[in-house]
């Protein structure tokens, strides 16, 4: 069982790194890109004894307590077998 956690800055929070990446991408000639936002991705491997709902609960708690700062970031959890 694996939990995938995606952490992204809230849309209201400025992302200067995403902006710089956007600028670089434009330099490559991609002019049709409206916006790029940078985020973080985590893979949490869980013991085989854990079922899907337990995995989700644990991953959401970990994401909320550690991986994301809820003041500035949102997160999304995906569970894969």
């Amino acid at each position, binding site marked *: 069982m694996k939990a995938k956690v995606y952490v992204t800055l809230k849309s209201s929070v*400025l992302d*200067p790194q995403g902006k710089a990446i956007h600028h670089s991408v434009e330099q490559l000639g991609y002019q049709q890109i409206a916006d790029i936002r940078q985020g973080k991705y985590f893979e949490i491997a869980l013991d085989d004894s854990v079922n899907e709902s337990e995995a989700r609960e644990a991953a959401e708690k970990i994401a909320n307590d550690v991986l994301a700062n809820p003041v500035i970031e949102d997160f999304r959890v995906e569970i894969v077998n």
Partner: protein
Amino acid sequence: MKFGVIVFPGSNCDHDAYHVISKHVGQPVDFIWHKETDLSGYDAVIVPGGFSYGDYLRAGALARFSPVMKAVKDFAAEGKFVFGICNGFQILCEAGLLPGALIRNEGLHFICKHVNIRTENQYTPYTNELDYGSVLSLPVAHAEGNYTCDDATYQTLEENNQIVFRYCDENGEITSEANPNGARANIAGICNLDRNVLGMMPHPERACEELLGSNDGRNIFRSLTGAIAAVSN
């Protein structure tokens, strides 16, 4: 009166803070390793600048889980003084001792220079020796100093006079040009509701002797010393 300077793996302004307390404030001071869980006997702790845990995940995010932080929270709840500088400010926000967060500088650069800040609230334990509106020249050295919070939090900070310092020009004007990192409303430092916890991005401990270009930081430490003395009496 006794000060403590918390040392995390990656702290690098701990010795500056220790130097200022021992030499300029002239009070006993200890280094406190982050594994420590007992802060009894101290009147104030400084959470210093640096790169605790290499700034992994987010600046200050992992330091928050060091054993000493539980003690720091209890210490703050008792009304004792907790002073976070630079990375220390980031840690205090991550730990929930101060509202908001510090994100990447708007211009992306690591900024290392002297800036001017204006005293917005002189009625705190850290600013009682300063006049309202007085301008201090202090160095900043950070990549994540861009203070951010939501509108409701900002309104609360304003209403309760928790904004202690704002970036300004040399005449004390709050302008966007004087804002080095994009911080909301030029915020350079805030305190908690009870005023005993302060976090600020500029480094007063690096500005306590003329040789270093400014001694404007001294009045902050002098204020704190006076506040501790007043509490002890």
